[in-house]
């Protein structure tokens, strides 16, 4: 009897490993920046290139940093949700226009709506590297002290917004 049970047991263990393994998304690499201070940047604004925005300007507020580009297909997917969120005025959203032509970016926002309080231009992607960006879109939740508390890799979904991002934002805003 044991002769059959041992291979069967091994098979079940293997099956469990495969089941869990297949459920994981290899594209989601945990960021080492969670609970670390958000990298400091000072970048020109997309709509008013004469003005800049720095990480330090957002101190004292809970805010979202959304990395987007007009060439990014998945950004279109999350965009209606962001527009809605921007209208609700629950939390300031800063857009990081990543490796994009400013004109193309402006046109894109003109067509699809602009959910951002401010968008800043990261033309050559250096600030993106500081934030460990490797797949656009990405969204960071940053607290009042300027610490990154959460990172959404890939498009923001309604589920992620309801279950993760907004509860976290509310909690951070209270503290």
């Amino acid at each position, binding site marked *: 009897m044991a002769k059959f049970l041992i291979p069967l047991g091994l098979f079940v263990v293997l099956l469990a490993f495969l089941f869990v393994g297949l459920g994981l998304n*290899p594209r989601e690499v945990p*960021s080492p920046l969670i609970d670390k201070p958000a990298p400091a940047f000072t970048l020109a604004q997309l709509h008013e290139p004469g003005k800049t925005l720095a990480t330090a300007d957002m101190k004292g507020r809970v805010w979202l940093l959304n990395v987007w580009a007009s060439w990014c297909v998945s950004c279109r997917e999350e965009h209606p949700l962001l527009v809605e969120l921007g209208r609700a005025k629950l939390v300031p959203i800063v857009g990081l226009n990543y490796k994009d032509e400013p004109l193309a970016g402006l046109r894109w926002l003109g067509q699809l709506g602009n959910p951002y309080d401010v968008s800043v231009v990261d033309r*050559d*992607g250096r600030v993106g*590297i500081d934030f460990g960006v*490797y*797949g656009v879109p990405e969204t960071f939740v940053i607290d009042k002290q300027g610490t990154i508390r959460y990172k959404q890799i890939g498009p923001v979904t309604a589920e992620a917004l309801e279950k993760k991002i907004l509860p976290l934002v509310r909690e951070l805003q209270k503290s």
Partner: protein
Amino acid sequence: MIRFAAALLFAIIAATLALPPAAFAADAVPTEKDPVNSARAVKLTEELRCLVCQNQTIADSNAELAVDLRRQVREQIDAGKTDKEIIDYMVGRYGDFVLYRPPVKGTTLLLWGGPALLLLTGIGVIVVVLRGRQRMPDATPLSAEERARAEALLAGEPKKEQS
């Protein structure tokens, strides 16, 4: 006919070999003139994983991110950073995943120890099986009759022919 086919085949192979590897030619060439530094850049970029095409190093990959990260590596070398500083810079932003050779620590123990563990398990299984096998043939000595039959067989005098 065969000769024609052979010539055609030869022409195809020659044409394939002559094609320049256009895809990498543009930016794979290290920009610095300093051969020591460019060797360092190549070595470092071969240690780092591209997060977009995850099974390629940033030296191999042509993803935009890999191009940017190669530029970072070169700039930091030019700025006089040590290899360790550059690696730390990448790990600080992208985590251990960016390293092609993950460090040995708590979370990677199974990764590093796994193969040895499997090897030991395999050896253990073999030992147990072999021991079981040694014990298997019944150790009872042959009876006198069996021995006689065996000797007869060995001597080449099969019983059946006698009868």
